[in-house]
C-alpha cells in the first residue's frame, strides 16, 4: 500500500503515519436523504460496537459563525465563497476527521469536498483550480453517492423543509422563481456528480426508493468495507 492517502500534497507539515479508522462519505444533492441516512448509519454502527464520528459541511468551529453571517448578505462573491468553504473543510479535516481516523473511528461525512467543488464549478470556478485546492483532502475509503432525479428531490423538499435560496442556486438566477431555479441548478449539479462518480470511484446508490431500501444498500456496502478491516487485523 504505497498509494498516497491524499489527493495531492495533503498537509506536508503533519507527520501522519497510519489511519486505522475508516472514512465513509455520503454524497448527493440537497433533499436526497443524506442526513436521515447518516443518522441511521451512526446508530447502526454504534450498535455494532464501532466508535463513530460524524461531520458535515459548515460545521467547523472556526468558520461557522462567519460563514453563516456572510451568506446572509449579498457581498459573498464566487471565489471568496469557494475559499471560505475550503477553510471550513480544511479545519474539520485537520481537527476532526484526521484525529478521529488516527484514533480508529469510523468517520461518517455528510458530504465531502466533492459537493463544494461541484457548486463552485457550476458558478464558474476553474475545475483545475478546485481540484488542486482539494489536494489537501484525504481519500475516503468509501464514497456512497445517493442519486435521485430532480422531481424526487423537489417532492422530498416541498414535503420537508422547503426550497431554499442557496440550494436553488438563486444567486445564479436572480430574476427567476425558486422552483425553476432549483430544477435547473440541481440538474447541472447532477451532471457534475455523475462525472465525479467515474473520476473518483463513487458507489452509486439509487435514492429514489424507500428509506429502508436505501439504508439496506448502504449497510451492505459498509459491511463489506468493515469486514475487510476485521480480516486484516
Amino acid at each position: 500500500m504505497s498509494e498516497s492517502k491524499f489527493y495531492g500534497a495533503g498537509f506536508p507539515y503533519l507527520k501522519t503515519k497510519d489511519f486505522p479508522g475508516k472514512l465513509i462519505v455520503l454524497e448527493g444533492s440537497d433533499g436526497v436523504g443524506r442526513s436521515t441516512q447518516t443518522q441511521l448509519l451512526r446508530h447502526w454502527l454504534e450498535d455494532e460496537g464501532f466508535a463513530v464520528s460524524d461531520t458535515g459541511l459548515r460545521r467547523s468551529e472556526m468558520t461557522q459563525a462567519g460563514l453563516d453571517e456572510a451568506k446572509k448578505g449579498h457581498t459573498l462573491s464566487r471565489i471568496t465563497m469557494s475559499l471560505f468553504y475550503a477553510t471550513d473543510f480544511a479545519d474539520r479535516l485537520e481537527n476532526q476527521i484526521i484525529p478521529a481516523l488516527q484514533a480508529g473511528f469510523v468517520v461518517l461525512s455528510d458530504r465531502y469536498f466533492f459537493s463544494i467543488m461541484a457548486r463552485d464549478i457550476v458558478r464558474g470556478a476553474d475545475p483545475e483550480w478546485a481540484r488542486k485546492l482539494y489536494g489537501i483532502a484525504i481519500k475516503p475509503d468509501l464514497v456512497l453517492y445517493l442519486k435521485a432525479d430532480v422531481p424526487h428531490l423537489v417532492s422530498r423538499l416541498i414535503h420537508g423543509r422547503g426550497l431554499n435560496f442557496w440550494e436553488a442556486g438563486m444567486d445564479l438566477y436572480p430574476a427567476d422563481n425558486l422552483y425553476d431555479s432549483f430544477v435547473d441548478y440541481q440538474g447541472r449539479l447532477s451532471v457534475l456528480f455523475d462525472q465525479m462518480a467515474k473520476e473518483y470511484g463513487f458507489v452509486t446508490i439509487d435514492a429514489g426508493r424507500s428509506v429502508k431500501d436505501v439504508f439496506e444498500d448502504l449497510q451492505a456496502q459498509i459491511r463489506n468495507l468493515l469486514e475487510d478491516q476485521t480480516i486484516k487485523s
Partner: protein
Amino acid sequence: MLRKNDTPGKLIVVEGIDGSGKSTQIDLLYKWLKAHGHSVHFSEWNSSALVKSTTKFAKKRKLFTPTTFSLLQCTDFADRWENQIYPLLKAGVVVLADRYAFTAFGRDVARGVDRQWVRNLYSFALQPDVTLYFRVPLDIAVERITSARAKLKYYEAGMDLNLSESRVESFGIFQARILHEYDRMVDEFGLTVIDGTDSVQKQQKLVRNIVKQELKGWKGLPIPDESVFVYHQSEIK
C-alpha cells in the same frame, strides 16, 4: 506564474518582511499619486470586513493550522480582489496593494504548506505591473519591529510553529524562512528589489521613478474634476 494584467488599470504592489519599511513607502506613494491627479485605490493585506470576525475569533482561540491560516487569508484576499481590486483595475484605476499573493507564498510556505499548492490558490490574481520588494537584512527588521512594538503577537511571531519559547527568537527564525522564500521569488515573479536600509527619501525617490516610468503615456480613469486632472497630468510627465 500569474496571468498578465490585461485590464486598463495599473497594479502596484509592495512586499517585504515585517519591518522592511514598505508601508511607509506605499503611503508616500499613495499621497504623491493622488496629488498628481490619479484615481488611486489602496488595499491592505488582511482587511476584508467579511472575514474579519472569523480571523479575530480564530486568532484569539489559536485555532489556526498552517493550511487554515493560508486559506482564510486567501479568502480575505479574494473578497478584496472580487469586490475592489479587480473591478477597479477594470475601470482604469491605479491600485496600490500593501502585500499581495507573494506574502502568502512567503509566510505560508515558511509555515510548512506546499509551495505549488499555495501558488495555485492565488492563481486567480493578476501579475502586478510593478512589485517592489523592500529587502532588509534580518537583524535590522527584527530590531525595527521589537523596538517599535510592545509585544509581538502570537501568529506574527510564528509561535504556532513551536520554533522557540521566546517570541523574539521565534520571530527571528520565522522571518528568516520568509526572507528565504522572498529571495527565491525575485526571479520567479520578477520582483524589483529596493534596498530597505537606504534613507526613506532615497527609497521614495527611486520608487517614484519606477512608477513614473510605468505610468508614462498611460491614461487611467479620469477624476470628475477635469481641470485638476489635466493640470496634474502635464506635471507628472
